[in-house]
C-alpha cells in the first residue's frame, strides 16, 4: 500500500514537472523576445509596426510584411476550406467505401511531408505556370504562394473536419435516414451543422499554420518589399522577412525589425491556436 503511494507520487511529480517545464519554456521564449527587442523599441518606438521597409531611406517598418502575410494566408485558407470540407465529407461519409481508407491514408502521408518539399515542387511547377498565365511578372507571386499554402494546410484541416463529421454522423445519420432524408440531405442539414465546432477549430488552426509557415512564402512569394496589389505581384511575409534579415548585423535596425516580426507572429499564432482549442473543447459538451 505504502509503496504504491510512493510510485503514485513519483508519477505525479514527473508529469507535473514536465508540464511546468513546457509551460515555462513557451513563456520564456516570449519574455526573451520582448527583452531582446527592448533596445530596438527604445530607439525607434513602435514605428516598426507602422512604417514601410526602405533601409536606403532609414525606414525599417514591417507594414508591407504584415499586409502580405494576410493577403497570402486568407486566400489560401479560403481555397483550403472548400478543398478540405469536400475531402472530409468524402472520406467520412459519402465516398465509396472502397476509396475511403486509401484517401485518408494519403492525407496522413501528405501531412508528414516537410514544407520545404512543397516549396521546392512549387518552384518548378507552380511558378513557371503562373508566369505563363499571368499578364506580367516573374511567377514568384502571392498567388503561387497562396496556392501551395492551401495544399499545405489542407491535411491539418481535413483531420479536424473528418473527426468531427465521423463523430456527428454516429449520433445523427441513422435518425436522419429514418426520417426519410437521403444520405446527402442528412450530411448537409444534420451532420455538418452539428460538426461546426470541429470545423471552426480546424479553420483557426489552419489559419495559424498558414501565417506561421516560412519556407513556402520564402521560396515562392518573391520577397519583394512592396504592397502587392495584384495576385501576380510578389511580396514578403513576416516569416520570410525573419529568414532573410537574420544574416545582417546584430546591432543594426534591420535586426531590430526581426524582433517586431517575432513578437507579432508569436501573438497571432498563440491567439489562433487558443481560440481553436476553446472551440474544439466545446464540442465535447
Amino acid at each position, binding site marked *: 500500500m505504502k509503496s504504491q503511494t510512493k510510485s503514485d507520487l513519483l508519477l505525479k511529480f514527473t508529469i507535473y514537472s514536465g508540464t511546468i517545464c513546457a509551460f515555462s519554456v513557451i513563456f520564456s521564449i516570449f519574455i526573451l523576445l520582448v527583452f531582446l527587442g527592448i533596445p530596438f523599441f527604445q530607439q525607434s518606438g513602435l514605428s516598426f509596426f507602422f512604417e514601410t521597409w*526602405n*533601409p*536606403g531611406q532609414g525606414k525599417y517598418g514591417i507594414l508591407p510584411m504584415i499586409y502580405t502575410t494576410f493577403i497570402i494566408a486568407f486566400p489560401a485558407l479560403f481555397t483550403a476550406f472548400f478543398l478540405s470540407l469536400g475531402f472530409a465529407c468524402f472520406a467520412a461519409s459519402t465516398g465509396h467505401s472502397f476509396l475511403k481508407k486509401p484517401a485518408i491514408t494519403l492525407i496522413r502521408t501528405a501531412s508528414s511531408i516537410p514544407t520545404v518539399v512543397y516549396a521546392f515542387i512549387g518552384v518548378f511547377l507552380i*511558378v*513557371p505556370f503562373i*508566369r505563363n498565365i499571368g499578364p*506580367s*511578372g*516573374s*511567377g*514568384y507571386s502571392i498567388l503561387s504562394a497562396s496556392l501551395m499554402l492551401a495544399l499545405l494546410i489542407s491535411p491539418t484541416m481535413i483531420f479536424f473536419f473528418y473527426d468531427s463529421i465521423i463523430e456527428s454522423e454516429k449520433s445523427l445519420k441513422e435518425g436522419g435516414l429514418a426520417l426519410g432524408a437521403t444520405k446527402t440531405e442528412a450530411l448537409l442539414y444534420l451532420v455538418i451543422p452539428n460538426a461546426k465546432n470541429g470545423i471552426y477549430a480546424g479553420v483557426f488552426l489552419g489559419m495559424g499554420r498558414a501565417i506561421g509557415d516560412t519556407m513556402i512564402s520564402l521560396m515562392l512569394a*518573391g*520577397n*519583394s*518589399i*512592396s504592397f502587392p496589389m495584384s495576385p501576380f*505581384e*510578389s511580396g*514578403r511575409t513576416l516569416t520570410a522577412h525573419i529568414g*532573410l*534579415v537574420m*544574416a*545582417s*548585423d*546584430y*546591432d*543594426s535596425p*534591420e535586426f531590430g525589425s526581426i524582433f517586431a516580426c517575432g513578437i507579432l507572429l508569436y501573438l497571432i499564432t498563440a491567439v489562433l491556436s487558443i481560440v481553436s482549442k476553446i472551440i474544439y473543447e466545446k464540442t465535447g459538451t
Partner: protein
Amino acid sequence: MKKLFFISLSIFLLVSINCFAQNNLSPFKNEKGSLDIAGGTAHIPVLKEAAQNIMKFNPDIRITIGGGGSGTGIKKVGEGLIDIGNSGRKPTENEIEKYNLSMYKWAIDGVAVVINTNNPVSDIDTETLQKIFSGKITNWKELGGKDASINIYTRDEASGTRDVFWKKALLKGDISQKAVFISSNGAMKTAVSKDDNAIGYISVGHLDDNVKGVSLNGTYPDLDNVKSGKYTVSRGLYSNTKGEAKGLAKKFIDYIYSEDGKKIIKSKGFIPAER
C-alpha cells in the same frame, strides 16, 4: 558515368597536387592549435579548400570557417572573438582605427549583370541600368528586345554582391520595391536561367552558360576585363586581423598568398591579388 569518371579524376589530381606541393604547406609542420574564421560569405569556398588542405597535412590544426556577413566579420575580429574576420568590402576608416585592423586583400571579384540566354539584349549603359532597376523602364521592347515586361531580381541587404552592385553599377540608384529577392548567387543563376524576361546580377565567378552576361557600357564582365580594371564593378575580398597577423593566422594568410592559394582562388572563379 562519364561525369563520375571526371569527378574521380579531378579528386585524384587534387590529391596528387597536394602531395607534390608540400613546400607551400611546410610552415604548418609541427604547428598545433585552432584558428577561427568568420564573416563575408563570398570568401568561404576558397578558405574552406585552403583549410582542408592544411588540416589534411597536419591533423593537429583545427580551422573553423563561419559566415555572418562582412559587418559581422569585422566586428567579431575587432572584439577578439575570432582570429580572422572576412569582409567583401574594405573596412571603413572608422573600423580600422577603432579595432586596429590589418587588412589582407587576396582576391578581386566582379559583379556582372545577367539576363536569360533567350534574351537578345547584350549591352546596357549605366543610365539605362539605373532606369531598369528603379522601375522606370519596364519593357524589354525599349531595349530592342521582345515585347515583354522586365522582371527584376535582386539580393537581400546582407549580401556583399548587392552592396558592390548598388554602389558601382547603379551608382547608389534606387532598386524597385517590386524586385524579387533571391538569397544566394547560385539561386540567382537558377532564377534568371528559368525566366525569359529576367534581369539580375551575380559574382563574375558564377557566370556560365546557363545565363547571359551583359556588357556594361560596352565592356563584357569577364575575368580579364575585371583584372585590367576596364570592368569597374568589382571589389576586393579581404581577410582582416586585429593588429598584425601572427602565429597560425599569419601562416594561414601566407598560404592564401602562396602559389597553392592562388590556384584555389582561380579555381573558384576569382582573381588572385598580390599583397
